[in-house]
């Protein structure tokens, strides 16, 4: 169906994947640009999804594979948007394909190379808790199933070249500039996490056992660094007491992130429940300001967390975390609003639920595309209610968390993915 102009989707998270598939399966050519080596985005990093407790990867992987196999989808992983000219109907786009140092057509993803690679690197996919090699696949289900050389950490020893049965490694590979003509652009660049080091009182980075929720996801995940054995990073002890702190950076005017990230309450409950399933006799406290488990299915979830799993919810935002020098346990100081008293509790592990921020590239991207961002740096919809997935430039749409917390969670992201697909189809229909 060549007559329809192609579409560029930026960001290979679940939202971008959905948009791509919906467009592709109706005969529209899609270029899916993803900056990391594999599509999958944040959802791939999650252990389970609330409230159904589906294994995140299990339900995502088929979509990823479908995307990879779809004749109308061309994956441009490990690539970035360089330049965009033109307007709706005909954008001229330049994509920079970063060198993978591996021939995608030859690599079978067998992983022998990384087995032998001497250079170890903390795996960002595992939130740096796990370990990967300098030549690596970020996670076993990665799509495309192709290795990538991280030159930052590569010592250029060439062992990978030698052991690769398929002769796929090419350490001399160069970056590639790809020119694309597309009729419309969908942005699905997702989010980054607030770095809790910005709130020194919580001692993130200072105490190894103060971690972020995404780090926890990896620790809980069966395919994570510890194989799903929940241990605390400092000494591998099973945490018998865990605290969740909500709104770390969210709803915080000082930090200029006044909004509610709108997923933390829900996933905290999920994670709390998971922890109880891992370590039944663990004490889990969730410190919150408002328990925002909004929407269908969640109230029940909260109730079960309380009654079935005996997770206790404390309405308070803790002031400080200190460490008991002897036991290395963490002491959490907070004001119990129910009783109006300052109290302290000991914890083996403290999980911070950081605010979701616009992903780092957004500003640049917005500049590149000439679209506006809101005061938080999320892409701005011209009319919040009537055209929620449009941006301020016709023909360019946004989907998923890059629109800001408009998106609650995965279903929202997917719905928006489809919605943008519809918008694209509309404008292309108009255009043609």
């Amino acid at each position, binding site marked *: 169906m060549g007559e329809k102009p192609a579409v560029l989707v930026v960001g290979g998270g679940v939202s971008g994947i959905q948009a791509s598939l919906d467009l592709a399966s109706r005969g529209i050519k899609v270029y899916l640009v993803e900056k990391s080596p594999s599509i999958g985005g944040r959802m791939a990093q999650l252990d389970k999804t609330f409230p159904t407790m589906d294994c995140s990867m299990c339900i995502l992987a088929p979509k990823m594979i479908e995307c990879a196999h779809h004749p109308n989808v061309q994956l441009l992983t490990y690539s970035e948007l360089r330049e965009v000219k033109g307007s709706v109907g005909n954008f001229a786009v330049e994509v920079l394909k970063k060198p993978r140092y591996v021939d995608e057509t030859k690599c079978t993803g067998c992983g022998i190379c990384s087995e*032998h690679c001497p250079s170890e690197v903390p795996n960002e996919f595992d939130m740096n808790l796990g370990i990967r090699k300098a030549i690596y696949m970020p996670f076993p289900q990665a799509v495309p199933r192709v290795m990538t050389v991280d030159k930052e950490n590569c010592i250029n020893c060439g*062992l990978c070249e*030698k*052991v690769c*049965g398929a002769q796929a490694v090419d350490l001399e590979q160069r970056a590639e500039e790809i020119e694309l003509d597309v009729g419309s652009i969908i942005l699905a660049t997702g989010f980054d996490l607030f770095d809790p080091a910005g709130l020194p009182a919580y001692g993130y980075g200072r105490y190894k056992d103060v971690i972020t929720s995404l780090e926890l996801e990896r620790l809980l995940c069966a395919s994570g660094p510890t194989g799903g054995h929940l241990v605390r990073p400092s000494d591998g002890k099973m945490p018998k007491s865990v605290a969740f702190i909500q709104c770390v950076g969210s709803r915080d005017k000082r930090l200029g992130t006044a909004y509610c990230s709108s997923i933390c309450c829900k996933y905290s409950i999920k994670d709390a429940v998971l922890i109880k399933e891992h370590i039944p006799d663990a004490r889990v406290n969730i410190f919150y300001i408002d328990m925002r488990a909004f929407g269908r299915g969640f109230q029940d979830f909260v109730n079960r967390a309380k009654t079935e799993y005996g997770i206790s919810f404390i309405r308070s935002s803790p002031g400080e975390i200190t460490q008991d020098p002897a036991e290395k346990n963490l002491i959490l100081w907070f004001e119990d609003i129910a009783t109006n008293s300052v109290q302290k509790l000991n914890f083996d592990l403290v999980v911070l639920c950081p605010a979701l921020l616009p992903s780092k590239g957004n500003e640049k991207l917005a500049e590149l595309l000439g679209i506006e961002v809101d005061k938080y740096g999320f892409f701005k919809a011209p009319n919040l209610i009537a055209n929620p997935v449009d941006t301020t430039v016709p023909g360019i749409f946004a989907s998923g968390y890059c629109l800001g917390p408009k998106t609650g969670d995965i279903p929202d992201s997917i719905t928006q993915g489809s919605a943008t697909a519809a918008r694209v189809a509309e404008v292309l229909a108009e255009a043609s």
Partner: protein
Amino acid sequence: MSKENRIGVFVCHCGVNIGSVVDVSSVVKFAETLPEVAYAEENMYLCSEAGLESIKDAIAKHGLNKVVIAACTPRTHEILLKEACQEAGINPYLLEIANIREQCSWVHLNEPKKATEKAKDIVRMAVEKVRLLEPLEEPEIGVNESVLVVGGGVSGLTAALSLANQDIDVFMIEKEADVGGVARTLNEVYPTFQKASDIVEPFIKAAKAHKKIKIFTSTTLKDIKGFAGNFHVTAQSEKNPIELDVGAIIVACGAWNYEPAKGMYQYGVHKGVVTHLELEKMLREGTLKKPERVVMIQCVGSRTGELWGYEIPSLVQSDAARLLTKLLAKKEEGWPHCSKICCMNSVKNAILIKKLYPEADVCILYSDLRTYKGYEDFYTNARDLEVRFIKYDLETPPKVVQGPKGKLNVTVYEPLAGREIDFISDLVVLATPLIPSKDGILLSRMLKVPLAPDGFFMEAHPKVKPVGVHSEGVFVVGTASGPRDIPESIASAKAAAAKVSTFISKRKLKTEGIIAAVDSDLCIGCGMCEELCPYGAAKIEENKSKITEVLCRGCGICAAECPKQAITMRHFTDKQILAQVRAALAG
């Protein structure tokens, strides 16, 4: 090794060499206590016929299947002993030699107890290794039947001719424009007073004429690759590069004549001071005007100077490199060895002068007069011609200064008279030694042949293997391995030629069984071995390393580096070496 080991240990007294320091019988007793040792005995001289016989007998009698021999260094006797084992039906690679002479008794003469302890350890180490040894086959390689002779001097020519006459192809490389070497520049040679040319010219003619000999003049060696039986030689003549494949190499690059440092005995300052080489020239060309007196000084630049002029810790340079610098610096220090031929040479020239100008007074200042062999009467002959021989101490060498009327004034302390004597002399002739040649030193590096402390080629064994060196297929003749006069050079050349022909005629040559083996199950084809092997013996084929046996020299670099420890060195496996280490520390 399914069959259990029965090790025989033989400890050698080597006369008193070992026995006088190491308590041999206690070593034997100790050996008997070692695991898998079925038999142990001591022997006065294992390398003697009797000794070898007793080894063979013991092997037969006690059903031994492995042997440890504690004696001298394997470098000299291993072959011999291996053969003995072989004759007794034991694979030569199941023999291990414990070196308790060079590396024990001889170096701990004053500590017999500790030396004995050490000897025991060494024996235990050998036993431990032997337990793990496995029989090896030695892959055979063809031998190239042509020979390279480096240097076209008398000895080179001799060797070349005698080989050619045995129908062996000979290539001769000479860096000068013509062959003949030093001998050509000589006048008459002692003791027969023949013209040197009368000796050399026939050789030259014969060699040039011989169809089996190909001579490359004005040609210098560039590089030598390969190994015994299959050397690949590249050389450079004025015009074109030359490539040769030969089975053996004869080094006949000769020696240099020491040229005194400027000012030494006024040499290079006063034209009346010359070396014998220069004197010979005058005599040959008859340019020597009648002198009133000629003073000859012996041992100029020889028998002086340190054996090694360096302090050990700071030593990084290779000896070859150091020799070169010394050589080119023309140090006053001179060379430590006695050049052996100077005395006769001086006597000869003295006689020649006397014959020419009987009135001329010829005195030879010497410290020891070493007219060895049958040259004594040659010496008396000179005395009869009233050549004066005056002794001086090496400690107080003669002094030479400008004398009246352009003559020279030589002062020497006469120890017998106990006083100084002055001579006014027209001519002062310095007897300077033969010293290693630059070419020799360079060649030694190309051939990886060690040099002796004095800088000459080092014979495999000064007595046992005078013309062989530490590298198979390479032979040294003439003055390359030390000062020799013409007859001696010729003799050595003939000897070498004989050795070479036998070496060549083997046609097939067994190479070391000590080569690398790859366990391809472990090999991941990383190519480290290929990268590091100095001989290109390791190659990656289908992601696995393959060793080309004839190329492998057994250095073991690959084994030491192999990331997967997939490479084992036959006869020097990790197991075997570690067993030795353990044994060494077991005591």
